[in-house]
């Protein structure tokens, strides 16, 4: 008898533009794309800078100690994708990074009651190992 350990939810697909982000996530680190010309962060990563159009970009490692605040959120009571039926309600947020407030990172807020979420709430990034070699950045409420 085998124990079913398959991860049912979608796994982030790495592609030409985003793979440094997800490669760093697998190492439990945050790495963001940055425009070489105007120095803006680019998130989600892309083929050029949405602020100035420059195709010259680089990557900046922000490390493993990432704090943020809730910029906006929704509490989702229905599963729209496989796997989420086990995880309702799902709290989804876009959080504003303390180190670069213009950057908003989407993730679930885990280990948190839906009623406790509010805009401005402090968060800490954590990484959930979803397969043997992949990890997903998530948010947990920051200790006050």
């Amino acid at each position, binding site marked *: 008898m085998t124990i079913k350990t398959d991860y049912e*939810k979608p796994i982030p*697909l790495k592609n030409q533009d985003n793979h440094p982000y997800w490669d760093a996530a697998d190492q439990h680190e945050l790495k963001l794309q940055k425009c070489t010309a105007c120095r803006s962060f680019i998130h989600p990563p892309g083929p050029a800078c949405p602020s100035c159009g420059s195709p010259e970009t680089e990557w900046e490692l922000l490390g493993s100690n990432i704090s943020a605040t809730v*910029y*906006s959120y929704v*509490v*989702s009571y229905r599963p729209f*994708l496989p796997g989420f039926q086990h995880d309702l309600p799902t709290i*989804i947020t876009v959080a504003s990074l303390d180190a670069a407030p213009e950057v908003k990172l*989407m993730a679930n807020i885990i280990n948190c009651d839906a009623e406790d979420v509010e805009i401005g709430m402090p968060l800490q990034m954590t990484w959930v190992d979803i397969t043997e070699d992949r990890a997903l950045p998530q948010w947990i409420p920051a200790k006050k």
Partner: protein
Amino acid sequence: MATYSNQCAIVGVGENKRSRKSGTTPLHMALTAARNALADAGLEANDLDGIMNYSTGADSCPSHELATFLGCHPKYVKDVSGGGSSTELLIADAVALIEAGMLNTVLIYRSMNGSSGHQVGRGYDPNMLQEMLSGGSFLMPYGTASPTQWFGMFATRHMQQTGITKKHLGHVCISFYEHAQRNPDAFLHGKPLDMETYLATPDISSPFNIHDCCVELDEANAIIVTSAANAKNCKSKPVFIAGMAPRTTHSNTHYWTQVDEVAADYAAAELYRSAGVKPEDIQVAAIYDCFSWVVLRQLESYGFAKRGEVGDFVADGNLKMGGLLPSNTAGGMLSEGYTHGMNNVLELVRQLRHDYKGTDRQVKNCELGIATGWAGPDMAGAMILRN
């Protein structure tokens, strides 16, 4: 100074019966809608020299195919990928081609089995979605695949910042459901809504429950645009295109960097300038309503209520018949049916022609109306029509 200045008119509107399960194809439904619009205008298929439509993916039928089975040979066909605000965009394209002397009479349609066929935002493969959507791999792993969630993210912040409450969203729903009760063709005719029921309905994705979301149906709509000179030969009373903001874009929704601004904020200035009118001149409205909150946000964008006062504006009954801005008077997409915005435009045309004269469905003395389109916070289009 006005660029549009009433040089073109909508002379025909028509639809195919709306249902949850049409049992037929988008081509069949589009043909019915087109024939009804032609009959409304008193035109023959051979009078059309342009046909255009929009679809999301392959959920419609191509215009060339529609032309074939209408038995006509238009010199120009166009199919675009779109959604909300595409009605306004294609009408603007038709006006430009007519103004340039390229075309005389253009039929624009939207046909979709939006309930029994391909539903917007549902039934996709998650990996395909990750590749298809910009930034998709930053959405799907978090369970974010539904417009209710994407729009909810914008709504939550806007509501928190302006003091809009769940009850204010309810006033939008209740106003439109009230209109649907006077419209026998509305899908939710016979299903009125009160605040108690609304507030007791559990959320799908906060802040939206089922009543805050449009009714996805099988339906087709068609609109015929021609020059003001040609309009004189039509059977119907022409409704003139007084001004337009065809399509205005803002940064991609899924970048999330700035959710406080929406494309409608930018479309509004161009719209009023092109028509040479002010928000207070408008007497009837078709406000894009894929979700209740979208109505509130657009009322703010298009200058019908100040930021922070939009909730009071709708709570005071201003969207209802007899209010300052009777809106979505056939029930809107929240309760009449959803064809990505076109059905609301059909209703606006009928109000401005005074088709409902002598009944409780007619907005009294309306001469000037607004139609707003919204394809997510990142794209908006709008037009001002007058009789």
